């Protein structure tokens, strides 16, 4: 096994007493002494600081925004040309079978597009961008930048102590802020369902910024354990689990991410990998769909648990792709895929847990209401 990589905050994690685990090739904090449950709840109540420097940061440059946007639209089925300057949007890389190769955030920075992609996919994403975009465009990975996420209802007050203009940003706005003298590329977004910011800074400035944020009494460091339970309650997909190269955006209930302009009849219809399959699914039906599931007992049902229509039926109709305990809702939560005729909220299904069929209720996502500053 190759050596695990370190983020610029690695020493700080150890100093804070984090329990470290391997994740996507990095040695990452899964929890701090506070523990997953309290870290989760602290993020919902006040603010949590997450190190997400393992994620890939990439900029794409070109002669003008239009050229860059149209180039990227050939890989990503969202409206990039129509994205206003200093706004961010959720996107997906698709493949020829209509499957999802990665999900990402992309921002219009005027003269370039800034992308944030998943750690485990970043090398493939960079290769895809470099080989697929026409020669007028330049793809620059930014491995010398760290990424911090400040999430939770106190985030605005905390970040405003360093740069008051943080408070002027709305959900999915992006801006360059000066955070204690550090030039930071900031978006008002995150992966918890809470208000918050993602903050890109040069690696050598990351630790001093993290320490300044942690100095605020409302901020606690939060590990990957709580990051997972927060995003699960928020109904957000984890790449490689809830969405994969075998699931299409329509099956994944991510059709909302494909704006009308990219759909059949739109001005920028299709033109991305798998467009024929994805657009026909939007117009018709997908055979299966991602749904929220609430186990009715206390036992969490995790990835891989097979789902049945009854206590005795022999053939599973799907399986759980993410599951665990939801600290805010106080009960187990899960999401998974089932055949399209069993997706109505309120439907009772059964998960096979250690040989027992236990009831699950199809539940509208998210489990916890989103708390964004629109």
């Amino acid at each position, binding site marked *: 096994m190759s050596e695990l990589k370190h983020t610029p905050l690695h020493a700080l994690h150890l100093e804070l007493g984090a329990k470290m685990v391997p994740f996507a090739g990095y040695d990452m904090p*899964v929890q701090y002494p506070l*523990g*997953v*449950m309290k870290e989760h709840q602290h993020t919902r109540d006040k603010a949590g600081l997450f190190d997400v420097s393992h994620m890939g940061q990439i900029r794409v440059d070109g002669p003008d925004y239009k050229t860059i946007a149209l180039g990227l639209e050939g890989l990503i089925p969202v409206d990039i040309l129509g994205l206003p300057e200093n706004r961010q949007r959720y996107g997906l890389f698709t493949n020829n079978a209509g499957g999802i190769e990665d999900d990402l955030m992309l921002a219009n920075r005027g003269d370039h597009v800034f992308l944030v992609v998943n750690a485990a996919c970043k090398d493939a994403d960079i290769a895809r961008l470099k080989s697929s975009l026409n020669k007028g465009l330049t793809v620059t990975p930014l491995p010398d930048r760290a990424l911090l996420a400040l999430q939770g209802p106190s985030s605005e007050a905390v970040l405003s102590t360093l740069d008051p203009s943080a408070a002027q940003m709305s959900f999915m706005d992006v801006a360059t802020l000066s955070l204690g003298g550090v030039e930071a590329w900031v978006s008002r977004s995150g992966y918890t369902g809470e208000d918050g910011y993602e903050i890109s800074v040069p690696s050598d400035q990351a630790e001093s910024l993290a320490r300044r944020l942690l100095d605020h009494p409302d901020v606690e460091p939060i590990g990957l*354990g709580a990051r997972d339970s927060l995003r699960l309650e928020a109904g957000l997909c984890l790449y490689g689990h809830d969405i994969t190269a075998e699931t299409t955006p329509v099956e994944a209930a991510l059709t909302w991410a494909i704006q009308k302009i990219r759909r059949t009849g739109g001005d920028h219809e299709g033109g991305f990998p798998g467009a024929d399959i994805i657009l026909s699914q939007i117009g018709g039906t997908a055979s299966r769909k991602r749904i929220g599931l609430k186990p009715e007992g*206390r036992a*969490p049902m995790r990835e891989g648990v097979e789902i049945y229509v009854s206590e005795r039926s022999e053939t599973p109709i799907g399986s759980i792709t993410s599951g665990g*305990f939801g*600290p805010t809702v106080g009960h*187990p939560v899960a999401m998974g895929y089932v055949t399209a005729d069993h997706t109505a909220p309120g439907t009772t299904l059964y998960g096979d847990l250690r040989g027992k069929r236990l009831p699950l209720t199809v539940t509208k996502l998210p489990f916890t209401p989103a708390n964004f500053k629109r």
Partner: protein
Amino acid sequence: MKYTEEHEWLRVDGDIVVVGITEHAATQLGDIVFVELPDTGTEVEKDGEAVVIESVKAASDILSPLAGEIVEVNEALSENPALANEDPTGQGWFFKIKAADLSPMDGYMDEAAYKAMID
């Protein structure tokens, strides 16, 4: 008190043995959110699966350190699994087993040996 390599503590009370998990195990598991206890009256084998516990991270099995009959389980844990984190060696006990043969107890560690193992 005796200890197993699986981080269980065992307290002998006549021919009954009370079983729980150690402070060290509770810390390592993280917040416990679910405990599935056996039914009283269940016959278990030595090293047979007796309890399933789920923490925020994963599911783990608790094995029975002895063969025998489960004579009592800690129902309070089903309602409040966090007891296993808060008071693992007291109110967070798991089950009581009436052992047919207590001799395996001699093979388990005393406190000093257990402490040496986890250090």
